């Protein structure tokens, strides 16, 4: 097996895991796909180092780079493609089927369903309070005034609702970590 084969094998082995890892964090398949491409482009340009590493180290290296790319994306609101461009890699477009499949692998659908289910389990007052506070970003005094309750009661509704949602999300986060 030559270097190019070994690199392709690394991609075959870890490509989906990296894509899922990034999709779970960006919540956006296209962004995750471009970050995945740049991550592997970095791996390719660093191959002389990677080729000397054990599998576990290679994997750790790859995910560290992916996490760094993600952090940089958050800071700049754009996906860097410097090495993708330099290496002449064309990033393919994800079709609707691809997006659905990747979201499924990343568990985004389950995540949405779970959040929706948990939201539906909340009382209508809690749902309304969460909407005003989280979606509309209203201050608590406005939330309280709109709901016709005290500010303390408004805070309690939002807090309880958020805790319930957080409990729902936790197993999915854990599962995502395990698969990545």
């Amino acid at each position: 097996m030559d270097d190019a084969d070994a690199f392709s094998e690394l991609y075959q082995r870890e490509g989906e895991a990296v894509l899922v890892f990034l999709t779970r964090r960006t919540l956006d398949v296209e962004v995750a796909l471009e970050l995945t491409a740049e991550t592997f482009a970095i791996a390719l340009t660093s191959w002389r180092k990677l080729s000397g590493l054990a599998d576990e180290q290679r994997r750790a290296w790859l995910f560290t780079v992916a996490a760094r790319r993600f952090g940089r994306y958050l800071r700049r609101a754009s996906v860097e493609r410097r090495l993708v461009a330099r290496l002449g890699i064309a990033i393919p477009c994800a079709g609707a089927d691809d997006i659905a499949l990747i979201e499924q692998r990343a568990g985004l659908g389950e995540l949405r369903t779970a959040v929706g289910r948990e939201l539906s389990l909340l009382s209508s007052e809690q749902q309304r309070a969460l909407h005003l506070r989280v979606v509309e970003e209203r201050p608590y005094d406005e939330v309280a005034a709109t709901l016709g309750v005290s500010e303390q009661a408004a805070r309690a509704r939002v807090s309880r609702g958020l805790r319930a949602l957080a409990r729902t999300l936790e197993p999915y986060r854990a599962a995502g970590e395990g698969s990545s």
Partner: protein
Amino acid sequence: MSERIRVLDELGIELDRAARRRLASRRRRVGAPRRLSLAAMIVVLLVLAAAAAAAVFISSGSPLPAPRAQDLESGGIPLPSTVHLAGLDVADPEAGAPRWDLRLSRSSSGETCTAVGQVLDGQFGIVGLDHVFRVLPLGGVDVCGFAAPGGPVLAGARVFSGSSPMEARTVVNGVAGAGTRSVTAYGPEGARELPLGPDGSFLAVYRGYVEDIRPRVVIVTGRGTTRTVSFAQSSAFEAPDPQGGAPWQISGGPDIEPGAYPDENCVQANRVMDHSNPFFGDTAEAPEICGRLATSPLFVMMRRFVPGDGEGSGFPWGNNPARTLIYGAAAPRVSSLTLTGAGPARTLQIDRRGGGFLAVLDGHVDPQSLSLTAHLSGGAVVTYTRSANALAWRTNQPIVQPPVPAYREPVPAAQITTPSEGTPITGTLTQDAPVRGPAGGQPWVLRSWRSIYRSSGSVSGPGVLQYCFQFGVIENGALVLPRTGAAPITLNTPGHPTNESNEERCNSAQILTHRTSQFSVESYLADPYAYSPTILYTIVSGQAPLGSTHVLLIGAGAPRPLAVDANDAFLIVLPGRYWANRMHLAYTLDGRTHGIPGRGGISQRGPGLRPEARAPDPDGGAPWGFAERGSSFNGFGRIVEGRIAGIEEARGTVTDGPGNFSEGTGLRLGVSPQVQFQQQPEEENEGIAGHVAPLTRAQIQRRTLPGRTIITGIAEPDVVSVTITTPEDVRTLRPSGVHHLIIAVYAGVFHQASPTATILLNDGRTVTEPILGFESRLPSRTPEQQLQDVHRQQTAVEHDPQLTLAQRRSLTEGLPAWARIIRLRIAFERSHRGLLPVP
């Protein structure tokens, strides 16, 4: 079998093509621009100052600020009433410079604490690069630790930067414990028996960086036992560079690749990373070569390497100075090697572990003028005047020696450019009216355009439509990006290749459809180096979903209408207090109003992440924090207003949320580590490529090294404490927070020796683990150990319930053949004992 993701396969094809071009072709291309080394950075800054100050005159400045107690281990805070100088009074190598001493103290929990500094007029401090003496605060640079059975309480090698490598100082210091008989320090000048202070304290000062000195101390305890502590020692077999600076190393061992002969070994030579050669991507590498050591006494490569060599081979020389290398491996029956033809004859050392040998000569030396003479143990002599017996790595085919290339110099960094994100489509480039912040200050200007992105080498095809923007302030009629303590960066007209960052932010139309917005929230600081930086104003910039109207920014006070330009870009300047707000866009698209939470902005970073473990910044800036939220959001960064944030000092900005992520994927050995460690270097000035970072205030005042090393750890509940030993010092930390986290931050980057951790468990046992870094290499393994690795991998894959059958097959298909090759090697070694080098 699970359904395949088509787009992932298509990307795989693209990457495979790129891999074949890059790893298989011989196309020559120079490497990336080399960034200035620490020494060069300092020289740049100090040349003028040095010219102005012909005579060294030391003045006194304000005391350096102390770190806050809340950032230190509660038990490791020195008690002021216990502070005293050890009185070691060691002279600096430069006559007239203040002498060095060790400050000793005790912590409330009984630890011994030390700090290294200079004494001037009875005060304990440090002379900065600006020749100003400043008093060192208690706790600022102190390291605390408990007495360890059989070893010193504390031992470290503090490095203080200088205006040149020889002006840097490595201060070996420690506390060996009461009753210590002697401490001997070994450095470039040989052995020095050190005078001992209270509690067996000792100190030795050397010129240069620790990687150059590689000191060690030998301690003879009161019981007569001997303990050796080495700093920045490398287990690699090394050879000096003819121009000085970072040495070269040769590494290798048995070849257990498919098709290898059972008596085949391989070696590879490369330059070691250190302060003068700090970035892995720039390191010169010579090709890995192999040879059969049962049929030949040695194999050798004698070759001149010039800038641009090896591109596409997997072993690029990069844009490094030309060198002539003689390297290979010798069987144990070779008793000595002599190289002639380049000055006086010289003996080449042979690494008895692996058989490697290496000599590095100036690139002007013609390899055809050299002779390598091997003296065999039976008395025979063999002389080589060219590369011999060498096989190519992987293919195992004889290497055909290429013609000797003409000597050439590296390409000047200024002449190396990187591609732009694409030339603007005619008529799309716009520059919006300046936007002034609510608190005044310079108005900010947004520039945006559309372009067709094509990967390099591709001139045909439709390309990808992308939307780009950049922003800055206007100075002297040009758009520039302000920087902290340095001249602003001119943002060039888009489309021009440059050797500097152009701060272009581009997203493909594909990303900006599907009702997706991309925006970032960056806030500018009055002083990014301050412990509690003041946030001046917040810039929200980005791109609205394509074709959207009535765009509102939600989450920063009342909804704010955004002026979106012809390329769907926007920029708004807000008061600083909104820096950590969770924001999103609301907009109208296709007649419907949307108000989904921001998908491309800050919502994913875990706003409000509060630190569970904290550590002081070595430069006295905002402290560092590490937090875990659930199982998937581990992050570390600076602590600003009680939250974990990312500070980019060179840009003078802060963003909410961790600047780095520690996802639990850290490198680790051991089957089930008690602590999941991760070590990451934090390079300076990331994000403003091509620009040399100016020295920071702390680097001038405290003489700290640029960059930082951050070690994080997630401990099991039964971990009581973790003692981290680095080339710089020894620190004992206790896990904190509900997730049992630790964080330690060091000035500079550990280029050579990997830190180790001694973990104390609550049943009294201790476990020692290496803390491997992002760039660390695993130690070489014997064939027997590698066979165990193969079996372990096979078992792990077979028992992993998350793998599909296809994945399992793919991961294990090569393992039986690999195991067979290793067994052949083991059998050969056992039946031909002494014929091959010991790995």
